[in-house]
């Protein structure tokens, strides 16, 4: 069974068809990358999958359940979690506190008023376990602003993991990170639980090549092709799209 499945998604803005009959399958444990030039409709597709936008036709199925009509927050509760392109963290809090917030919310404890947060052992332990998995344990007591941008991106992923995702949508995780930190980030992503399905939206082919088992190319709202990274990169169609010339739509 696919963890996430989209069937025949169509989205129009006025006369412009931004998503044109897109069908995709993200099996359990998948490592799928979504690429495409500017204006290909990646952002819209992510919006349709996460529930920020409603498709004109088509369905989104999450773990076998039709979630097309569900609001984003409810999809999160069902296990579809995304990270954000631009860092959107609690900057004045420590890394542990950032993750604690999400863990506590997910455990339904955000209205618990009587017990000190530091004594809520299960919540603290789960937060620390997630930070351990992402290699952030040593900096857990530092505030967000005190760690490198690469590590901030990892906190972004840690928050997403706290929400217990079945499908994780990583939106350009490597954007804005200095070159020497990208390797560590990719390493960490590679070590995420095997049963987690990951959909990566990325511009950078180097990142895609290292991460993906399968690559889907989106052009002008349509799926141009799907295949292994090698197949995609040797396709002449893809090259044409990436090197300009055939820009059928503009951003």
């Amino acid at each position, binding site marked *: 069974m696919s963890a996430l499945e989209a069937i025949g998604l169509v989205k129009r803005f006025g006369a412009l068809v931004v998503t044109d009959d897109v069908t995709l399958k993200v099996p359990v444990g998948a490592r799928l990358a979504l690429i495409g030039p500017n204006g290909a409709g990646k952002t819209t597709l992510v919006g349709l999958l996460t529930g920020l936008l409603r498709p004109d036709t088509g369905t989104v199925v999450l773990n076998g359940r039709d979630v097309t009509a569900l609001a984003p927050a409810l999809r999160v509760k069902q296990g579809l979690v995304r990270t954000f392109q631009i860092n959107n963290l609690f900057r004045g809090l420590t890394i542990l506190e950032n993750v604690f917030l999400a863990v506590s919310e997910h455990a339904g404890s955000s209205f618990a008023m009587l017990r000190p947060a530091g004594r809520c052992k299960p919540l603290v332990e789960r937060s620390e376990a997630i930070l351990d998995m992402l290699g952030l344990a040593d900096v857990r007591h530092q505030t967000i602003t005190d760690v490198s941008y690469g590590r901030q991106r990892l906190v972004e992923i840690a928050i997403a993991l706290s929400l217990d995702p079945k499908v994780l949508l990583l939106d350009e995780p490597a954007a804005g990170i200095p070159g020497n930190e990208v390797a560590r980030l990719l390493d960490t992503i590679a070590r995420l639980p095997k049963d987690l399905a990951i959909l990566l939206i990325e*511009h950078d082919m180097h990142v895609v090549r290292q991460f993906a088992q399968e690559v889907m190319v989106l052009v002008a709202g349509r799926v141009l092709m799907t295949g292994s990274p090698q197949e995609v*990169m040797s396709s002449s169609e893809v090259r044409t799209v990436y090197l300009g010339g055939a*820009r059928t739509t503009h951003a």
Partner: protein
Amino acid sequence: MLEIRGLTGGWGPTTVIEDLSVTVQAGETVAIIGRNGVGKSTLLELIVGRAQRRSGAIRFGATDFVPLRTYQRSAAGLGYVPQEREVFASLTVKENLAVAQRPGRWTQASALKLFPGLANRLTSLGRQLSGGEQQMLSIARALVGNPKVLLMDEPSEGLAPVVVEQLVAALKSAVGDGALAVLLVEQRIEVALDLASRCIIMDRGHVVHEASTASIKADSTRIGELMGLGAEARVN
């Protein structure tokens, strides 16, 4: 004319440009190409002074740009056509040009000659223009500031092919007599190659290749590799 050495910077805490060096000579047009998200626009924003420089030098002729604020860089002779056009939405076309006007060979009249469509809409507000018209206005606005160096971020985007041809011709004539140097970011390689004498290929905030237009036209395989595709690329 414009000399950038060891530049590192980005937006807020991000690092988008890393240790990058580029020079543009007077009267020269240099194109920066590269796939999405490699930092081409950020490089221009760093030169304008709207993104945050971490280290490195930006020199403009004999002037050190680093301590200058954005408006001072503009006054020193830097023109800018940003990617999002950024015309002043509540100003008329005429006012958009008037606030940017500085004395020199480009006047409102001569700039509007490039874009006859715009000349008919002088009293329209910026927000009432179509995307293409906004793009023309943004270019005209940069020209009437009579810059010595013009930074253009995808100027062909959203323009009809005929207008692109006109624009390319006009820019060629402006550059041809040595009055204007241009640093151009362009995704349409054919436009970039048509305008520029030299091309710079960027990836992940670095310059990965720099060559004359002619040699780039001759070596499309290498360009494809450099742009992260690993095989031959078709360039015109």
